[in-house]
């Protein structure tokens, strides 16, 4: 007993010589240690820093405003051929939504896939993750931290995209008294239109978050990063092709049934579903939210299960 106590004391002394002086305030601060050892906040900071350390993440962050510029240019050329009474006609208020609509399915979805492929599959399969796992942290918590970090990245991207396109809309596009919304959701003024845009962006963020969850599962299952990307692109292609295929069988269904089956795919929700939700067309608001929740729960649980039963020491 005595010798053991002594040796611990010696160790303390040894450590203290190298450790920076802890102030009294430091000592009083409660150290949160929940089971695993490292708090979730610190994991998140680590993952956040790791994400931004990548040159590809920085490039992707630049890609957001750049694609905004491209679609603003496209909308300007498109406006010349459109009747100002149509909801597709871009005005200062509707530019953020119109510019996001096409980029959501392509660029933003692709971004989610790259994030999942880079941060999960590549780090896990390449062995980079081992460094992080020197500390006693469960894989599940690391993956949760990664998911939150990617989600934050996406929110920032959407935010910058909104600011850029709204500014471009104000500067370059006509600003009428009021303009029509999609699917006969009424006419709105500029201010109301911006609120509509914000609601649109919130739903877009939700849809992207669900898509990110799906990709996180694919990234957990994929044996290499190229496989993950192949699976992800395959998922997007299938989600696009099945509704197209469905349109051949259009006469077989009633309108209500048809739109419900049509919006079972994440890509169609991103493409047309969000505007339909905001207009509450055919009671689609609840249905689409349900579909999103279903995808999120299914793939989220499968991801959790995958990481739970994976042997860290493989």
């Amino acid at each position: 007993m005595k010798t053991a106590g002594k040796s611990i004391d010696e160790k303390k002394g040894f450590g203290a010589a190298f450790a920076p002086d802890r102030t009294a305030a430091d000592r009083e601060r409660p150290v949160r240690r929940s089971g695993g050892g490292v708090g979730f906040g610190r994991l998140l900071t680590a993952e956040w820093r790791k994400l931004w350390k990548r040159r590809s993440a920085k490039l992707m962050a630049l890609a957001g405003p750049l694609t905004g510029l491209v679609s603003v240019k496209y909308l300007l050329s498109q406006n010349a051929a459109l009747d100002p009474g149509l909801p597709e006609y871009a005005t200062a208020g509707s530019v953020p939504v119109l510019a996001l609509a096409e980029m959501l399915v392509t660029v933003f979805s692709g971004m989610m896939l790259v994030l999942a492929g880079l941060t999960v599959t590549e780090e896990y399969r390449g062995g980079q993750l081992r460094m992080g796992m020197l500390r006693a942290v469960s894989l599940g918590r690391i993956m949760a931290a990664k998911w939150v970090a990617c989600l934050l990245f996406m929110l920032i991207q959407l935010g910058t995209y909104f600011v850029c396109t709204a500014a471009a809309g104000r500067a370059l596009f006509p600003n009428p008294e009021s303009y029509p919304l999609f699917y006969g959701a009424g006419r709105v003024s500029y201010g109301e239109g911006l609120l509509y845009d914000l609601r649109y962006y919130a739903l877009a963020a939700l849809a992207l978050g669900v898509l990110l969850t799906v990709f996180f599962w694919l990234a957990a299952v994929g044996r290499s990063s190229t496989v993950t990307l192949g699976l992800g692109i395959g998922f997007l292609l299938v989600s696009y092709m099945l509704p197209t295929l469905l349109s051949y069988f259009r006469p077989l269904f009633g309108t209500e049934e048809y739109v419900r089956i049509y919006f079972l795919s994440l890509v169609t929700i991103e493409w047309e579903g969000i505007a339909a939700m905001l207009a509450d067309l055919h009671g689609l608001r609840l249905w689409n939210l349900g579909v999103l929740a279903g995808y999120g729960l299914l793939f989220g649980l499968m991801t959790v299960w995958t990481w739970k039963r994976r042997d860290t020491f493989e």
Partner: protein
Amino acid sequence: MNKGSGVGMGNLIRSEAQRVFKRKRTWAVAIVYIVFVLLECLFLTMMNTSFYDAEHSVALNSLNTAPFLLRELAILMNFVVIPMLAADSFGGDVSSGALRLALIRPISRGKLFLVKWLVLGMLVGGLTLFTWAAGTVFAGIAMPPASETTLMGAGAVGRMGALGFSLGFYGVALCVFLALIGVGGVVARLVPNPVLAYIGILAVIVGGLYVSDALVFLLSVSDSIFHFLGRTGGSDASLGWILCALLAGCAIIGTLGWQRREWNQ
């Protein structure tokens, strides 16, 4: 043998083929593609119609079916199969370090690029040939028999004419695929990370649209080839020489780029 550069071309090809086929995902993606070929056949029997492009539909029969398999399959090929293979072969081998062992022998890097292109070309060529064969055989069995048919550009043709047309069609399609593999080699030279190389290849396919309408053939392979073979004019009339330019450009840029590559990075 073994004069000058040291290692014979045959051995290089054999070694590269071993690396490509050693990867389980090469087999997986090839099998997935073949399954989709069969599904596509099933789909065409259900529909009995297909499309030259968005405006022109066509009733299918035993002679004209073969080219239409590619309408959907080319998307799978261009967006999944080729980017995966190219990113793994051109990018993955470098960034994972698998190539170091091969490079112990004094091999010309430019030659290595061409060998990789050749091996992937043979693999994709095999898949294309399979698609053509499956389409031809399946059309003969399951589609309404016909002794004569009309094809865009070729007019009314008999059995041999239709066979020739479909072979020509798949030949041009193979050239498109080869060009895309070459693009993959150049992209992976710039960004060896397989994830980024994969996305880079997709970015070239989609971004090409913003550069020129004439590059649309990377996206809508079968429509463009029908337009090209049918001489309907428009932006696809230039497909022939653009394809040649793309192939030559990738060969030159790729070879030079790989030769100047710094391997000790």
